[in-house]
C-alpha cells in the first residue's frame, strides 16, 4: 500500500492510506486524535462520515467517507425503461424530488426532441418552486439545529408541512412524487390548487420575516456563521460548485438565468447574491442568506406562474407523453437549477432499446461536498458542523 501523505512529527505520525487515516506509530505522547464523525452523528445530515484528524478542538484534516447510502442509481437506470427511471430520480435529492424529476424529464425530452404543452411547463415550474421553498426550509431549519437553535427548525417544518400537503394533493405523495413524467404530468393540478397556493404565498411571506427575526438576526447565530468557512469565488468555480454555494461566494450564476430552460426566461426574478454588507462573501452566513432570499424569489415566481397559467380547458396533462419511448441513437446532457445546485443528467441511447445505455447524474451535493477538505482545514469542531450545515448536503444525492 502506498503512503500518500503524512501528518505529525516525532513519535506521532498519522498516515493516510488510500482514503483511510491510519496511525502508523502509536505512542503515549500522541497529541492528534483521529475522530470518526459519523455516519451516525446528529449533524452530518444523514450517513456522511468524516474522518477527522484533530488537535484538541482544531481539525487538521477532515476526509469525507462516502458510500453509506449508495443505491446503484446509474446501474438501475440501465435496466429499466425511461419512464420507470422517474421514481428513481425522486430518491436522489429526496428533499426536492420535483426538481430532480423536472431535470430528468427535460433531459429525455431533449433526447426525444418533443414539444410539451405550455400549461405543463407552468405547472412544472410551479411545483418545482414550491419544492424549492420546502427544500430551503429544511436547509435553514437544520442549519439552526446544527448551531444549537431548535425552535426555527420546527417553525420551518410547520410551513414545509403546508407545501407537502399541497404537493400531496397534486401528486398523491408527500415526498417522492413521481409527478413530472416524460412529456407531461401524471395529473393536472386539482381544481382549487392555484387558489390554495396563492393562500400559501400570502401566509408564508410574513413567516419568512419571522424566521429571519428569530434566526438570521440573532447575535449568536451571526457570531457562529460570520466569516466562517470562507470560499473564494475562483476556488469555488474550480471545485465546480453550483447553486446557493456558488452564489454565496459572490458568483452570479443561476441556470434558470444563465442557461434558461422551460418558461424561466418569461419570469421575473432576481438571482440572489450576497452584497457583502452583512456577511463576508463566501462564508457560511452568505450561503444562509442566499437561501433565505431565494425563498422569497421563489414566492415571486410562484405568483407569476399562477397569474400566467394557461387555462385548463381541453387540457390533458398526458397528451404529449409518447406511447413508447425509444430515442434515436445519441447522447444528451441536460441540466437544471436544483435547490442545492446544478443537477445534470447525461443520457446515452443506442437507438434500439427502450432503456438508456448510460444514465449519469451529475449531483450538486457531491461536488459541493468535495471541497470539504479545503474548507475544514484548521477549523474548530463547532465550525466544522456549521460548514457541513451550510453546504446543505442530501446524502441521497451524494451517494446515489
Amino acid at each position, binding site marked *: 500500500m502506498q503512503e500518500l501523505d503524512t501528518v505529525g512529527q516525532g513519535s506521532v505520525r498519522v498516515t493516510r492510506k488510500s482514503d483511510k487515516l491510519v496511525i502508523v506509530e502509536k505512542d503515549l505522547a500522541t497529541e492528534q486524535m483521529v475522530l470518526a464523525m459519523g455516519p451516525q452523528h446528529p449533524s452530518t445530515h444523514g450517513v456522511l462520515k468524516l474522518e477527522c484528524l484533530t488537535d484538541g478542538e482544531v481539525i487538521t484534516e477532515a476526509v469525507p467517507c462516502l458510500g453509506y447510502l449508495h443505491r446503484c442509481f446509474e446501474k438501475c437506470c440501465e435496466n429499466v425503461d425511461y419512464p420507470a427511471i422517474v421514481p428513481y430520480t425522486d430518491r436522489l435529492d429526496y428533499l426536492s424530488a420535483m426538481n430532480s424529476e423536472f431535470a430528468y424529464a427535460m433531459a429525455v425530452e431533449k433526447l426525444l426532441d418533443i414539444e410539451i404543452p405550455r400549461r405543463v411547463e407552468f405547472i412544472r415550474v410551479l411545483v418545482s418552486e414550491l419544492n424549492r421553498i420546502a427544500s430551503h426550509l429544511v436547509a435553514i431549519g437544520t442549519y439552526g439545529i446544527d448551531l444549537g437553535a431548535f425552535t426555527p427548525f420546527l417553525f420551518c417544518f410547520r410551513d414545509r408541512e403546508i407545501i407537502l400537503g399541497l404537493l400531496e394533493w397534486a401528486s398523491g405523495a408527500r415526498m417522492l412524487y413521481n409527478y413530472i413524467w416524460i412529456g407531461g404530468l401524471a395529473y393536472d393540478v386539482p381544481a382549487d390548487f392555484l387558489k390554495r397556493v396563492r393562500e400559501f404565498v400570502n401566509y408564508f411571506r410574513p413567516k419568512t420575516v419571522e424566521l429571519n427575526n428569530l434566526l438570521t438576526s440573532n447575535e449568536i447565530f451571526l457570531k*457562529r456563521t460570520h466569516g466562517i468557512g470562507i470560499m473564494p469565488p475562483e476556488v469555488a468555480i474550480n471545485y465546480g460548485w453550483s447553486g446557493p454555494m456558488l452564489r454565496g461566494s459572490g458568483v452570479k450564476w443561476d441556470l434558470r438565468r444563465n442557461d434558461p430552460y422551460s418558461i424561466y426566461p418569461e419570469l421575473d426574478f432576481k438571482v440572489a447574491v450576497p452584497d457583502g454588507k452583512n456577511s463576508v462573501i463566501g462564508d457560511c452566513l452568505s450561503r444562509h442568506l442566499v437561501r433565505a432570499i431565494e425563498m422569497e424569489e421563489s414566492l415571486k415566481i410562484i405568483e407569476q406562474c399562477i397569474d400566467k397559467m394557461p387555462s385548463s380547458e381541453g387540457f390533458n396533462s398526458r397528451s404529449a407523453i409518447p406511447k413508447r419511448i425509444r430515442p434515436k441513437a445519441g447522447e444528451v446532457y441536460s441540466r437544471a437549477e436544483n435547490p442545492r445546485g446544478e443537477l445534470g443528467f447525461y443520457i446515452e441511447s443506442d437507438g434500439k432499446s427502450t432503456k438508456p445505455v448510460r444514465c449519469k447524474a451529475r449531483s450538486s451535493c457531491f461536488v459541493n461536498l468535495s471541497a470539504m477538505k479545503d474548507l475544514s482545514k484548521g477549523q474548530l469542531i463547532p465550525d466544522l458542523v456549521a460548514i457541513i450545515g451550510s453546504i446543505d448536503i442530501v446524502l441521497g444525492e451524494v451517494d446515489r
Partner: protein
Amino acid sequence: MSTTALTQFSIPLLMGNSLNAWSEALVGFNLLGLPLGLVILAAIPLVFIALYSLTYGVYGERKISAFMQDRLGPMEVGKWGLLQTIADILKLIQKEDILPTSADRFLFVIGPGILFVGSFMAYAVLPFSPAFIGASLNVGLYYAIGIVAIEVVGILAAGWGSNNKWSLYGAVRSVAQIVSYEIPASLALLCGAMMAGTLDMQQINLLQSGSYGFAHFYLFHSPIAWLPFLIYFIASLAEVNRAPFDIPEAESELVAGYFTEYSGMKFAVIFLAEYGSMFMVSSIISVVFLGGWNSPLPNLGSFALNTWTNGPVWGAFWLIMKGFFFIFVQMWLRWTLPRLRVDQLMYLCWKVLTPFAFVSFVLTAIWEIYVP
C-alpha cells in the same frame, strides 16, 4: 372583601409556623438509638428534588418548548400528558444497565453519583422557608459555591471513564467552562454577601424582609446591584450547562457530550442532577438578590399584603415560585438561542463577565462603605 375577612382567610396559611416545632420534634425522634428523624428530615428535600426535577422540570421543559414551537408536547399519557415523565422513568428503570466493555468501570459508575451528590448537597443550605433549612451554616453561601464545583469531578469522571472521544471532548469542555464561570459567578454572589454582611443564607433572607416587600430585596439595594444579578444569572447558565452555554453536551457537535455512553438509570441520574442544579442556581439567585422566601408584596396601609403573605408555608411558596420563574427564563433562552462556540464562551467569561464582576464588586464595596 373586608380587611378582617382577608386576615381570616390568611390565618390557615400562617399556621405553618408550627412547622418549625414539628421539624424540631422530628429531629428528636430516635428509634433504637438511630437518629431516624434526621434521616427523614434530610429526605424531604431529596423527595422534593426528585418530584420536582423529574416530573415538573422535565414535563415543564417539554411543554414550554412545545408551546414556543407551535406544538402540543406530550399529550398521550394522562390528562395533557401529565404522567408522561412517570412513564419515562418507568422505562428508564426497566432498561438494561449497559457498561461499555472498554469503559473504566469505576469512573463510569461513580461519575453520575458524584454529579448527583454535588448537585444535591447544595440543597442542604437552601432556606426553603423561615422555618426550614437543611443545615443552617454560617458559611452557607460559601458552601453552596464550593459544593457545586464537585460536579466538575463527576463530569470529568463520566467523560473520561466512558472511553469515548465525544465524551472526552464534552468532559474537557465542561471542566474548562465550569471552572472559568465559577469566577464571575462567585464574585457576583460576593456582592450579595457584602450587601448582607453575612454568608449565612437564612440571615441573608432575613435581612431582606420588611414591610415594603420587594423594595427590600438586594436587587434594589444599590444602583449597581442589577449588574451582579445579571452576571450571576448568565454565569449560572454556564455553570449548569444550559443553553446558550450547553457546549459540553452540544448534541449537534458532540452527540451527547459527556453522557454519550450512558443509558438507563445512570442516564436518569445525570438528568436528575442537571435539573437539580437548575433549580439550585435559580434558588440561590432568588435568595441572594430577590429575597428568597420573603413576599414581594408590599404593605399598603391597612392592606398588609406583606404581613399576610409571609410565613413558613408562604415562604416555601415564594422561594419555589421564584426558582420556577428563573427556570422558566432558562428554558425560554434555551429554546430561543443558538449555541455559542467554545472560544466565544471563554471570551465572554474572561473578557466580559469577569471584569464587570470585579467592577461591580468594587462599586458594591464602595456603596456599602460610604452610603449608609
